[in-house]
């Protein structure tokens, strides 16, 4: 029974913890409006790492990409058209 964690998984895990430290640290640095952009950008990076490595998307073809992206694309529609009303009310 000899088994070692595969390097990509290990690397992804360490990168995720590193990004977590980074995002919490940056949250306390005053950047004005950029604080939330930075937080979301780091969150998106983390989610991408999880998708690519843990969920094995890097080994999948275009069909799985489309399936994985469809939810996000439609979330984008919901947020875009939904927010359009609230941001342009007079």
């Amino acid at each position: 029974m000899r088994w070692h964690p595969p390097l990509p998984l290990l690397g992804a895990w360490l990168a995720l913890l590193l990004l977590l430290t980074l995002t919490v640290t940056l949250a306390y640095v005053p950047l004005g409006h950029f604080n939330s952009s930075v937080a979301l950008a780091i969150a998106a990076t983390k989610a991408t790492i999880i998708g690519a490595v843990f969920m094995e998307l890097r080994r999948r073809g275009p069909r799985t990409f489309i399936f994985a992206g469809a939810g996000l694309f439609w979330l984008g529609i919901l947020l875009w058209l939904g927010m359009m009303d609230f941001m342009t009310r007079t």
Partner: protein
Amino acid sequence: MPNRPAFAPQYVSTRHRDETAELGMWVFIATEVLLFGGLILAYCVFRHTYPEAFAAASRRTEIAIGTANTAILLTSSFLVACAVDAFTEETRKICVALLAGAIALGLLFVLLKGVEYAGEYREHLVPGIDFSFDDKFANGAKLFFLFYFVATAIHALHMLIGISLLAVIARLTWRRAPTTRHRAALHSVALYWHFVDAVWIFLFALIYLPGRAS
């Protein structure tokens, strides 16, 4: 690996079956994205309307527990990914141990969440039950904590479902020789678990981080 019981008649091979199951899981995840999506829209709308109140309310959340929980969940995801890799005849005990670790971390997450909820109750931050906040920000803060409780409660529910599914797989793998069918099941549950992890990453950024610098 022995293939028992045989695949259902609508498939031509076990591989065909397993790939189909994986595709089905991705469709389900797309559904789940939109389930949380409705809440995210509500969050965006009210953060846009009450930016200061949201910052003030966010500062009242327990960032220590939030950060710890994020690390816990990331690690449990790592363990589940490892368990998928270790799912072979020879390393099946290791696979079970990894799953047990992931389950323990999942339970720890839920436990810490409970501690956090109790703390918020003591600090009068539960809308509709016991809520008081600086008058200037009371409305926006109420909406923030409403989002906080609804979103994290639904997320915790997903955690509990995931923990139960991981436990079922761990038990099956422990008791008999692994089959291709179990591998497919583990694969689907792992996808679900990673998705729940990814949702938390965004909830963490939306709930705990705003307003810390000001």
